């Protein structure tokens, strides 16, 4: 509140000037001396230009008043020849000199005693200007000076009260938290206003201020005071308070109330915005939960029949194996092949559903992978077997003996499946998998490459985005989520997945890494 001291000084100056000009008995006092620099001591006349100071003028007046009758009287006596002109003139001059000296001394003494209270008032005004309105001026009696002193004391009291009010206003604004909600905040602010301004009660009415009618004034009844609550140019409402009938309400009080209303307006706006954000957050969380529920339901409804299909196919294949051959003596080769396809396709569909589920999980928050101990090579072999591709080859070189990867088995399976799926769909020839150890970093590194046409750098840049499916024009039946999900999964486990730069002699190559540990007894 940097504007406040200035406001206070201006008020003081105005009030002093008003008080002084309001009293005719001391209208010799130059108004300018108070309104321009009211806190300056009076006994520095030179500062006020060429005008002769009040004590000098008073002294001069007294000298003139003392000398004039004497000189007139002497002059008449001499002119009327009542006394001898020669001797009389000498006596008159001596008397005039004595009177002049006496009048000068008396005048000075009188003017000093007359201006003493003024100096006291000036010093007090100066103290008020410096921020100490508490010490009163003691001027006995009921004359103009005493009234001036009293009016100064009242002014100082007002300033002190407004200072206190301002302090209370500010602290009531400061203690208000936007978390309390708009209604409670307005309620608290109104209570703060009532206490700060000494009102009977106060309330804040939200809505266009023009719709709140102005109350009529009735003498002897509490007066209504009001101020618009604004935030910037937006009019939020109005604060209305009832003032005790005996209480004065001046421009400065209104200025303070306006200031209060402005501060409250800004804070109120914040509270409104906060409430809005809060409501949106709650709604988002509800939506998130609803989405979770929905996905859980969809997954359940898709996975349950898939589970049955897969298990029934397996069961049938097992029964066939036990029977060995059908009644006509034919081996079940063809039927087994078909059953295997049913099981594989069910698995495939299952993985797709899991992938979709993972994508939506990635959107709603970080994954929480488990950190299991895994043999990476074994995991790759199992994933390939489960993949069930008969017409392609997978060559695994496992150089990670003595090391075990740390990661989430389910998540790793998802990644391996996506990479193998990618290599089968877009690549050609045998799929090469090499596993090595980065001992310095404590990581296992797996590189999977094929002998297909590879992936250009241009395509590589967009490959890890969502819903992107391999090089343009080579549409396949994937969801376009595999690599995006895979990378997120690997990063979630503290690893990574990258596309290797194109190289001669091989097609596309992906590298993944995972944290690992020594497989030694500990």
């Amino acid at each position: 509140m940097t504007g406040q001291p200035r406001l206070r000084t201006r008020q003081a100056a105005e009030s002093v000037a008003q008080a002084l000009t309001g009293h005719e008995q001391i209208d010799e006092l130059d108004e300018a001396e108070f309104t321009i620099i009211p806190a300056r001591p009076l006994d520095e006349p030179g500062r006020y230009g060429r005008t002769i100071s009040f004590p000098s003028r008073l002294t001069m007046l007294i000298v003139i008043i003392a000398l004039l009758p004497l000189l007139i009287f002497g002059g008449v006596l001499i002119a009327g020849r009542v006394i001898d002109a020669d001797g009389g003139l000498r006596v008159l001059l001596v008397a005039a000199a004595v009177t002049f000296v006496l009048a000068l001394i008396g005048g000075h003494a009188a003017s000093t005693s007359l201006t003493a209270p003024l100096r006291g008032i000036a010093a007090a005004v100066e103290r008020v200007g410096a921020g100490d309105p508490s010490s009163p001026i003691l001027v006995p009696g009921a004359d103009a000076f005493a009234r001036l002193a009293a009016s100064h004391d009242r002014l100082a009291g007002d300033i002190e009260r407004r200072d206190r009010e301002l302090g209370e206003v500010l602290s009531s604004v400061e203690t208000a938290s936007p978390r309390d909600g708009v209604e409670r905040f307005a309620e608290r602010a109104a209570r703060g206003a009532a206490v700060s301004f000494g009102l009977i009660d106060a309330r804040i009415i939200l809505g266009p201020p023009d719709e709140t009618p102005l109350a009529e004034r009735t003498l002897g009844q509490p007066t209504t005071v009001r101020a618009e609550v604004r935030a910037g140019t937006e009019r939020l409402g109005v604060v209305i308070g009832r003032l005790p009938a005996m209480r004065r309400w001046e421009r400065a009080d209104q200025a303070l109330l306006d200031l209060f209303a402005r501060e409250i307006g800004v804070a109120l706006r914040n509270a409104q915005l906060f409430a809005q954000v809060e409501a949106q957050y709650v709604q988002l969380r509800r939506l998130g939960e609803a989405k979770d529920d929905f996905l859980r339901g969809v997954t359940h409804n898709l996975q349950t029949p898939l589970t049955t299909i897969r298990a029934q196919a397996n069961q049938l294949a097992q029964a066939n194996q036990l029977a060995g051959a059908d009644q006509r003596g034919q081996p079940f080769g063809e039927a087994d092949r078909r059953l295997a396809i049913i099981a594989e396709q069910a698995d495939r569909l299952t993985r797709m559903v899991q992938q979709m589920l993972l994508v939506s999980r990635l959107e709603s928050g970080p994954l929480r992978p488990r950190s299991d101990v895994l043999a990476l090579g074994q995991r790759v072999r199992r994933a390939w077997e489960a993949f069930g591709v008969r017409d392609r080859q997978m060559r695994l070189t496992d150089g990670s003996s003595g090391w075990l990867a740390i990661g989430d088995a389910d998540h790793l399976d998802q990644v391996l499946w996506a990479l193998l799926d990618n290599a089968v769909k877009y690549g050609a020839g045998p799929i090469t998998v090499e596993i090595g150890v980065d001992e310095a970093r404590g990581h296992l590194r797996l590189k999977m490459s094929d002998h297909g046409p590879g992936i250009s750098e241009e395509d590589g840049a967009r490959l890890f985005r969502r819903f992107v499916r391999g090089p343009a024009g080579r549409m396949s039946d994937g969801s376009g989520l595999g690599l995006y999900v895979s990378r997120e999964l690997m990063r979630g486990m503290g690893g990574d997945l990258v596309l290797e730069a194109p190289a001669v002699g091989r097609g596309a190559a992906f590298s993944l890494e995972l944290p690992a540990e020594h497989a030694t007894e500990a």
Partner: protein
Amino acid sequence: MTIGAGSAAAQSTAPRILIVDDDPGLVGLLAEQLVGDGFEVQSARDGDEALLRLRDGWPDLLIVDLMMPGMDGLTLAREVKARADLPIIVLSAIDAGDSKADLLEEFAEDYVSKPYHYPELRARIHRVLRRLAERVPRQSLPLGPALSLELHQRRAIVDGMPVQLTPTESRLLYALAANLGRTVTTESLLARGWADTDEADPSYVWVTMRRLRQKIEADPNRPVHLLTMRGIGYRLVREPEPMV
């Protein structure tokens, strides 16, 4: 629906399993598979029916689906655990990333996601049943001034701070806590921590033990609770009382 085990001799000793799932196709098939492996199987279509069946007698194990009409699997698991410490395996389509997975682990001994792989499920059933013989308090197990285990919540309290354990870690600690102060061989820890289908070897146990020490020991290189019996196995001990 009760599907008896194959032979009369097996009936008295066969572990009894109650399957709770609303999908009759799946229940029928799973029951068939389990009976084929010598279990005695009952089934219930929802949570209420399951609680009714529990009145007639306790099975050795419950297999519960999470998503069911009426009382869901989580509520059922809570209800069951409030009555008796029955082992529960949850068979459901939710994954570990689901917000409900954490809640689940408090009540379920194990979790198998749909579509399940039967040999995997069977291996886990055996593993859970093996654990039955051992009794470890479901409350806190204090092991020293700075360590206590809360295995039913899959966590350890280290220096007053909870440390989350993975399912494998808590399974190993469970086996060790059941034999507090005695050595448990690496082989039996391996059988407890991993299913037969995991193709795990002793190095899995070693690495998991090292990681466990990092979680629960003040100085993992100088363990005071989780001790190695080189070439044999591991032992969980209470911290010796300080000499007065």
